[in-house]
């Protein structure tokens, strides 16, 4: 669905990467690998049209991305390397806000079961600022379920998580794949999540 | 005319032009000083203080002109994606600031004997003071952003928004009843100033413009070089 053609990015006279080609069909899981500073985050940001590429083009459903940007956004969840939950509010409030913002149709029992598997169900009435970093990161993944979109674009989803959580996320990825969703994520570490394609930057 | 929007062509044109302009500015400035101090008459009301006008008026005009140039280049840079406009913005802002400062200081030297005070809260004076503050903010913005791409665009946007002040400065003497005298020289009517005073005024204006141009060329060239080597 997403087609990236000969993408190059140059910022302040420095080439970050050259001629990247990528195509994301339904049921694909693409892993972007590379060292720190190799441009993984930049590439993901370019795909969601935050950064303008110096050359090359991106297509969404066969049309240039810029032409039907908001249709693309309607089908995409993007999780940056930061955590977007509001630290002053409780976990429950955050979930409530997300459900409202994304006009989610997920019912509460579903969310509760996910919270249980993520081991966050005890923190429901605690403020997000009292959670550990790994836990806030896990909370962030709840957005994937709440938003319920076809395409997931994730920036470093596996960093600072324990093996157990990585297994859960791998499970979620496979579930999403079986529902014909597609995922593109970046990582600098090796992991055995069922990746269909690997791109080195 | 491509040298007005292309850094490389500007460099070539500047190398060719800078020496004549420098010589011209020296000649004009000494000629202007000569005229304004010895060859122009004293005003029958203002006496010798009228000579302050030969510094005050040219610097005021050039302060406005500099800002107008910055506005035009900001539009060019933002709307037509001509990066040379950003270079002009960073290079020219301090020059405009200095002209405004000269204008304010010489004006208050004139105001002390004429109006009996250094400063009056009059529309023209206040709007010029605001122009000076706007120049200062532009200079500080250039100093305080770390990312160059963000900095130059933000400065250009600020220049555009701040250009609202320009017509206020220009027409403040017509719109409000002010202590400051209305413009004596304008295109629409015949100037009501004596030629003996008109000549030094015009010479001084060109001299100031040439001096400003020399400094501007040097600053723009350094800016181009520092951008090429990624220093700024």
């Amino acid at each position: 669905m997403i087609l990236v053609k000969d993408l190059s990015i140059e910022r302040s006279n420095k080439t970050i990467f050259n001629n990247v080609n990528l195509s994301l069909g339904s049921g694909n899981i693409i892993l972007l690998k590379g060292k720190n500073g190799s441009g993984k985050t930049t590439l993901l940001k370019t795909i969601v049209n935050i950064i303008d590429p110096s050359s090359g083009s991106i297509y969404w459903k066969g049309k240039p991305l810029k032409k039907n940007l908001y249709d693309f956004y309607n089908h995409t969840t993007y999780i940056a390397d930061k955590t977007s939950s509001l630290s002053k509010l409780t976990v429950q409030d955050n979930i409530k806000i997300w459900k409202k913002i994304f006009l989610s149709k997920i019912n509460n029992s579903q969310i509760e079961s996910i919270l249980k598997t993520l081991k966050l169900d005890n923190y429901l009435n605690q403020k997000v600022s009292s959670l550990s970093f790994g836990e806030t990161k896990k909370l962030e993944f709840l957005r994937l379920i709440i938003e319920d979109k076809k395409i997931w674009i994730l920036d470093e989803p596996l960093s600072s998580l324990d093996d157990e959580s990585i297994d859960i996320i791998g499970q979620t990825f496979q579930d999403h794949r079986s529902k014909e969703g597609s995922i593109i994520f970046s990582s600098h570490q090796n992991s055995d999540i069922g990746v269909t394609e690997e791109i080195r930057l | 005319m491509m040298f007005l929007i292309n850094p490389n062509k500007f460099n070539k044109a500047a190398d060719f032009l800078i020496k004549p302009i420098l010589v011209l500015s020296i000649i004009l400035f000494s000629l202007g000083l000569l005229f304004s101090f010895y060859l122009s008459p004293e005003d029958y009301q203002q006496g010798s203080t009228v000579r302050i006008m030969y510094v005050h008026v040219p610097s005021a005009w050039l302060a406005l002109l500099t800002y107008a140039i910055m506005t035009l280049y900001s539009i060019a840079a933002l709307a037509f994606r001509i990066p040379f406009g950003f270079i002009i913005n960073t290079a020219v802002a301090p020059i405009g600031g200095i002209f405004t400062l000269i204008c304010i200081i010489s004006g208050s030297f004139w105001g002390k004997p004429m109006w009996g005070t250094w400063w009056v809260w009059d529309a023209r004076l206040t709007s010029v003071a605001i122009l000076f503050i706007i120049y200062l903010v532009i200079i500080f913005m250039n100093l305080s952003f770390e990312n160059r791409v963000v900095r130059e665009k933000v400065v250009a946007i600020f220049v555009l928004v701040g250009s609202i002040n320009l017509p206020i400065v220009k027409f403040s003497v017509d719109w409000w009843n002010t202590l400051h005298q209305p413009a004596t020289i304008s295109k629409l009517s015949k100037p009501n100033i004596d030629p003996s005073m008109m000549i030094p005024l015009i010479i001084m204006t060109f001299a100031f413009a040439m001096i400003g141009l020399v400094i501007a060329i040097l600053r723009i060239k350094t800016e181009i070089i520092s951008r090429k080597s990624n220093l700024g």
Partner: protein
Amino acid sequence: MKFLNKIVSFYYREYKLNLSGLQDILTNIIFFFISIFIFIFSIGPDRETISLIGVGILWTLLLLSSTLSLRKFYQDDFENGNLLITHLNGFSFGFIAILKTFSHFLFVQIPFLLSIPIACILLNIVNDKLIYLFISFSIGSLILSCLGSISSSMNLMNQRNFLLGSVIVMIFSIPVIIFSVGIINMEENFNSLINILFGILLIVFAINPWASGLCLKLSLENN
């Protein structure tokens, strides 16, 4: 309909956020009142003088205290990535700027508006001027919100000199101050002055989404 729902939920989020940061807003108001006290201490408690310059003091302090809250305008949302999420949720940057401006007006300026009558009692401003003050402040504070949006979006990437944002707001608020103080002192000219104030509001309202949207996109791009 979906779009409208999203706007409503945007404001629900802002409401929750401001409710949890209620002490910030209250601190602003305390700053406002303390400054009034300090003004009165430095001028002296002469009733005549105070009522003469009271309106000017009120406007200056409202401007100063609303610039205090500028830091919160976009900075938090920018740093935790919510700005990007809101954009991906289907709002253009310009529209985010408009929404945020109204949110600032609702949650920061309205509390000030409510505290004006008390300040008027302290500053000995007569009751029949209060209505003029109210009208001028409600227009003026919306202008200040727009200016705040522009300047704080400009300053997102500026880590060294945050005060610059306040200076920008103050420069552009000069005409607002001139005309809104004029409204109260010249009651016979009320209509023409309020029209000018309204004109300024429309101008900044037109510039705001353009300038702020551009700055927001720029900062996200280079972050």
